[in-house]
């Protein structure tokens, strides 16, 4: 098996092995550390010594030994410090026979995901812990993906695990009445990971983990476990359809290309076909939700042969629907674009005024960028230029700033 093949294989085992350990020993936090140690040992040994016949069993055995060593030294320390009774579960110090702990019949991935995305954790901790415990990534890989020092990321992970331990959360699925709400949090975390990965970083960095790809992998896993859930399917479709445009979204020099000007031949057709099939199928049977509507909008963009052929009336209808299902200013902003494409720029600009009054997006660079675009459509070039310039000042993204500055420059008077 090639080295990357081994790594993918290893990472897929991560939640299974962690699940088996949690069932046997409890203590999610200690088990998670032990699994990382086992993954690390495997990544060193397997490429040279070959993949064992039962990879999951091998990992579980190594992780269990590590966990038990850990407990032995903790116990020794405690004996030195106090005479308090051991807090170990009975039998924990007996090393398991290699076949004693088997991966559970059921998949523990969901249980682990619910734990990693527990609402009591901060979003930053939810993202980091999910990528480690479910994604099987190392702390160093996660840190480099988020462009923070490894120590910072290690702290976020250990804080998340401490808080899971302190709140005494059991290793089981949330009760049925909470399941729906908790699943929304899991999906939101996966979407945040996906968007974190939507960077236009120039220059290939082979060692840097692609977070958008990682989010798609995790969404696929959830979809396999909950194939009937319309929002899970919708999120996976939305990710696939959005990610399909990535090759066309930036020029080789890193400059952003807006949707209308993208070379559609460079879109990833296989991903589009998969995303369209997923969303078409699920819209027929599942209760409607915001991810499905967003995926349906992305599918309409993806299916248009040219920017001019885009079915804007249909997209507008979907934005109406989305605003009812999940009203927020970003939705209104995109709604205004669709409205302008159907009824003309002035109608879109009127809708933007409600956002000025609303206040939540006031001063946001995207509001000004869209206003600039609609003013340009309306041939009010001086005002369009002023809006682009304001947006360029306000964005914190270098590629967006370059894009907005060049839009403004094109409208400079006397040229």
């Amino acid at each position, binding site marked *: 098996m090639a080295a990357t093949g081994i790594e993918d294989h290893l990472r897929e085992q991560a939640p299974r092995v962690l699940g088996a350990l949690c069932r046997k020993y409890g203590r999610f936090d200690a088990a998670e550390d032990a699994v990382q140690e086992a993954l690390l040992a495997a990544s060193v040994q397997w490429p040279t010594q070959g993949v064992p016949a039962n990879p999951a069993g091998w990992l579980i055995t190594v992780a269990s030994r590590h966990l038990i060593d850990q407990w032995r030294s903790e116990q020794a320390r405690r004996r030195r410090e106090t005479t308090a009774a051991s807090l170990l579960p009975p039998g924990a110090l007996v090393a398991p026979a290699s076949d004693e702990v088997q991966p559970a019949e059921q998949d523990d991935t969901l249980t682990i995901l619910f734990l990693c995305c527990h609402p009591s954790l*901060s*979003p*930053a*901790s939810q993202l*980091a812990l999910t990528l480690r415990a479910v994604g099987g990534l190392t702390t160093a890989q996660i840190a480099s993906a*988020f*462009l*923070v*020092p490894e120590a*910072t*990321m290690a*702290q*976020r992970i250990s*804080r998340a695990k401490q808080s899971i331990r302190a709140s005494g959360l059991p290793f089981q699925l949330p009760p049925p009445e909470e399941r729906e709400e908790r699943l929304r949090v899991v999906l939101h975390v996966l979407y945040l990971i996906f*968007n974190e990965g*939507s*960077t*236009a*970083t*120039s220059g290939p960095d082979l060692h840097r983990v692609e977070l958008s790809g990682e989010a798609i992998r995790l969404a696929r896993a959830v979809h396999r476990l909950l194939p009937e859930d319309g929002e899970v399917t919708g999120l996976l479709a939305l990710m696939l359809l*959005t990610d399909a*445009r990535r090759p066309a*979204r*930036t020029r080789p020099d890193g400059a*952003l290309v*807006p*949707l209308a000007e993208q070379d559609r031949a460079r879109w990833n057709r296989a991903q589009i076909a998969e995303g369209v099939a997923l969303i078409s199928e699920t819209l027929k049977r599942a209760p409607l939700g915001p991810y499905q509507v967003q995926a349906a909008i992305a599918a309409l963009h993806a299916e248009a042969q040219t920017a001019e052929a885009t079915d804007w009336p249909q997209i507008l209808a979907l934005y109406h629907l989305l605003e009812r299902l999940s009203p927020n200013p970003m939705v209104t902003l995109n709604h205004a674009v669709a409205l302008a494409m159907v009824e003309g720029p002035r109608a879109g600009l009127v809708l933007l005024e409600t956002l000025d009054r609303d206040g939540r997006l006031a001063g946001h660079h995207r509001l000004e*960028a869209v206003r600039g675009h609609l003013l340009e459509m309306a041939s009010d070039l001086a005002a369009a230029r002023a809006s682009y310039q304001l947006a360029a000042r306000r964005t*914190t*993204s*270098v*590629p*967006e*700033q370059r*894009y907005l500055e060049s839009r403004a420059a094109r409208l400079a008077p006397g040229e």
Partner: protein
Amino acid sequence: VKYMLLIYNNRSIIEAMSDEERAKIFGDVDTIMQELTASGELIGGEALADVTQTRTVRVRDGVPAVTDGPFAESKEQFAGYLMVDCETPERAVEIAARWPDARYWAMEVRPLMNQDGTDM
């Protein structure tokens, strides 16, 4: 989102403080640094040497001119920075407000540019 918190202060006033006042400032800094480390928000930070150690460099017509001292005389000098990664701009302001120099002088909270690019 990542922010740089720029610390401004005035050395001569710090020098004129009592030992207790100075100890309080160092203690406050330690407390905040520990808290930011534990929360996973701290990315980095450095303190700058005294402003008298500054050299200002200008190149005009290809010729560098190097002078001692800062570019502009000012009572408050840029003395160092903190880098944090936090959920909201409000949180970044809250951290700045607790930094002791903010009580005497000022802290500036500035978002960092990034390479993210979304569909426009």
